[in-house]
Each structure stands twice: as structure tokens, then as C-alpha cells.
């Protein structure tokens, strides 16, 4: 457990949703995160990678919602990184809950997919793996520094079905109804990753949440316009703030002809989206989005919604 305190206002906000269970949220937010990896089947088969890691006496535990995802039980971060298998790109160090948005997106081999905010590339490389390096992914980011990291990870993973672009995600609306599927893993206040990066809490404020919420509404609007009719948009964040989650989905439902589908994910404990926050009442369909609290699966916190354009 880390010797830091969460702001009182942070705890106050989530007590409104969780009640007494907020203690669990605090406990898990301060607990170190379990190390997890995703086997990169673009470079090695699942079986061969498991054989190599087993020969190194790695103890792995299957992540129930993704076949190629494993928790590493007996290695620290440095030990995971300093191996031949990591050097070779046979696995990618990826948080277990971050593997969920690509599962909800259900990429197919001939899809034309846009990943609006792709860096560092965890989800892009997973999508490429699920597409068996076929079809096409536009992996976009707005920052050149972040694009360098994205390209590094794509190349290390052997991804060859991706075009990397640098553009403000709000401008994708100029490509009207072009993409089969879009992942908008939106920039956010990152409350869900406190246990990985404690600096998040020093930057945390209601101002940031409100600023992010505005940006996210612009990003989701642009993404919906760029999505084909019948296409799927997966919206995700690694924060628990309703302003950045349900409020954004409520905005999308009220302003665009989209339906929200409830994702089904095997072996994952999750909760429905909330329909009220402070004085705001959201469309009841927002319930079909999912909240993953850190204490539910001992992971980062996440929010995911699956929208289908009519």
C-alpha cells in the first residue's frame, strides 16, 4: 500500500455512487497494480510463448476475458522487461482492463478501423493482432512525442496493417461515414490509473474533469460523423468521473442517431452506467455502458460504452 492520500473531495464524489464501498475504492486505488502481459500472436503462437515463459519459471494466471492475456505472478516490472521474449516483441506489457475495449470493438480481418487516440499503442497492437495483420487501422494521435512511442510499439509488435497519422481527433468529421469501426479511447483525467501512476492524483482537479468532458464530447461527435451507418464506436476512458463517461454518452445519444449496446465480456465483473449524477439526469439507455471499478477485478478503473450508428 502506498503512503499517499487521496483528496477528500475525490472520496466524497465517489461515496455518492458507492456509499460505504468507497473504502474499497480507496484501498484498491492505493494498492500496487498486478503485472499483466498480452501474448503478441503476430510474432509467436500462444503455445510457444507459454512454453518459453514456463521454461523461465514464470507463474502466469489466465486473464478470464482475453485468451492471450495473463497476470504475471512472480516477476516485477524490471524482470518482465529484461527478457529475450520481451525484446523479441513476443509479449506486450498491458494492463488487464486495457485489453477490454478491443474485445468490445470485435475487429474483423477486413475492417477499416480508426483508433482516434492510439498512443502508446497497447490497444492498436491488440486490434492488429485480432485482425491477423489484415484489413486496415488508422492509428492517430495528436502529439508527435506520443506518435514516436506508438510507432516504436507497432513496429516492435510486427504490425503491418496500420497507417499512423497525426491529427487533432476532432477533425476526423471531415471523413464522413468512412470507417467500419472506431475506437475512441479518450484522453481523460486518468483516475483509474492512480495505482500505476500516483502523479495522477497530484494533477487531479474538478477543472481538469470538466475540461476533459468538453473535449470528449467534441471527440465523440467527430468520431460518430466519421463512422459508417451500422458501424460500431467503442468509447472508453480510464477514469471513474461521470462527467467524462455517462455524461459524454448521454450527449452522444441525445445529439446523434446512435444506439447503445451492452457489451458482453466473459469472466469480468462490471456494473451498469449510472443514470444520475449531481443535478443531471441521463438517458436511461446510458445504463448499457459499463463501469469497471478497481476493486471489482483488482485492475485499473475503466469505463466502456459500445455505440452503433443507425
Amino acid at each position, binding site marked *: 500500500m502506498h503512503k499517499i492520500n487521496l483528496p477528500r473531495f475525490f472520496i466524497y464524489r465517489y461515496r455518492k455512487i458507492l456509499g460505504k464501498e468507497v473504502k474499497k475504492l480507496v484501498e484498491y486505488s492505493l494498492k500496487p497494480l498486478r503485472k499483466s502481459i498480452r501474448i503478441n500472436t503476430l*510474432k509467436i503462437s500462444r503455445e510457444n510463448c507459454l512454453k518459453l515463459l514456463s521454461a523461465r519459471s514464470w507463474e502466469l494466471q489466465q486473464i478470464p476475458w482475453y485468451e492471450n492475456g495473463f497476470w504475471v505472478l512472480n516477476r516485477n516490472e*524490471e524482470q518482465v*522487461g*529484461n527478457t*529475450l521474449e520481451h*525484446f*523479441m*516483441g513476443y509479449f506486450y506489457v498491458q494492463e488487464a482492463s486495457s485489453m477490454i475495449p478491443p474485445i468490445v470493438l470485435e475487429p474483423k480481418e*477486413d475492417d*477499416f478501423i480508426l483508433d482516434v487516440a492510439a498512443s502508446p499503442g497497447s490497444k492498436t497492437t491488440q486490434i492488429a493482432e485480432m485482425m491477423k*495483420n*489484415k*484489413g*486496415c487501422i*488508422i492509428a492517430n494521435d495528436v502529439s508527435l512525442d506520443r*506518435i514516436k512511442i506508438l*510507432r*516504436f510499439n*507497432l*513496429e*516492435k509488435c*510486427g*504490425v*503491418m*496493417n*496500420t*497507417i*499512423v*497519422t*497525426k*491529427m487533432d481527433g476532432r477533425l476526423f468529421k*471531415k*471523413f464522413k461515414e*468512412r470507417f467500419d469501426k472506431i475506437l475512441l479511447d479518450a484522453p481523460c483525467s486518468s483516475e483509474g490509473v492512480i495505482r500505476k501512476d500516483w502523479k495522477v492524483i497530484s494533477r487531479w482537479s474538478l477543472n481538469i474533469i470538466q475540461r476533459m468532458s468538453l473535449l470528449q464530447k467534441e471527440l465523440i461527435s467527430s468520431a460518430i460523423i466519421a463512422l459508417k451507418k451500422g458501424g460500431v464506436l467503442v468509447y472508453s476512458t480510464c477514469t471513474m468521473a461521470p462527467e467524462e463517461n455517462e455524461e459524454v454518452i448521454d450527449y452522444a445519444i441525445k445529439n446523434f442517431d446512435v444506439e447503445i449496446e451492452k457489451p458482453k465480456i466473459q469472466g469480468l465483473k462490471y456494473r451498469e452506467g449510472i443514470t444520475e449524477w449531481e443535478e443531471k439526469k441521463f438517458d436511461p439507455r446510458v445504463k448499457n455502458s459499463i463501469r469497471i471499478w478497481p476493486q471489482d477485478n483488482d485492475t485499473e478503473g475503466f469505463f466502456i460504452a459500445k455505440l452503433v450508428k443507425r
Partner: protein
Amino acid sequence: MNIRKMNEEEVNNLLKYFEERFGIKKEVFDEYNFYKTSKKVWIANKSLESVKLEKIYLESLGMHFATINKKRKIFKISTDASQIFGKQATKNIVEITDEKLIDVLRGFDLINFESEAEDGYVLLKYKEHILGVGLKNKNFIKNMIPKERRLKT
């Protein structure tokens, strides 16, 4: 990025070089197209060919495949491409021993290293894994694995 698709002659020259140097058959690349910037060659799945996005700045397309050495009219295959396509190579492969593995992954050159491979670019292989590329000159092999790809400790 100012990038263009390589024409048939350019692709033939590229693949001829890799077949002569490493014994990698042209057919290995049947599913891919090649693109070129001033100094680099890129490889991408053919499915990217049909994509047209107007007025958008491309940072990269597919994977960096090779760097062009214009003076010597040869190509240096990238570490990432070598790890995938090097598995099909039949010659100019240098086998790395257990003792030397960590040194290679950390980016050290190989000094006084005996190998029957020809001088020039060679593939560094440990068991079934192609680690990357070296530049051989007699008994010295310069490690070409980029700094950011090396093991840190």
C-alpha cells in the same frame, strides 16, 4: 512523410538483394507492398493499398523494412523486419551462443567472433529467434540493434 509506392523494378531489385544476401525467397513477400521515402523502405499489408484519406499527414505506413545505403547500393534490413522475415533466411546467419546472448541484447559488438558468414550485413540468430542485424567485417561484428530496442540492464 513524403512516401510513394515502389515500382515493380524497384521491388525486384530490393527482393533480389534479399534473396542473394540472405536466401529469402521473393514469394515470402507476396502479401505485401513496398513503399519508399528518401532513405527508407516500408512494408505494408496489401490491404492498405485501397485506403485513401485526403489531406491527412501520414507519419508512417506499415513497418519500417529497410534503410537504403545509396553509396553501396544495398539495403540494411531493420531489426523489426529481420525478426519476422529473417526466419526464412538460409545464409549469412551468425549463430549467437548462450554466453554472448545478453551482450548482443544489450547492444555490444562481437569482437574476435568466428563465423563463416560473408562480410557485410548478417542476421544474428539465437536458437530459433532472429535477434536483429550485425555488420560483419572479418572477426568483428558491429551490433546494429537500435539503442531504444536494447535491454537496459
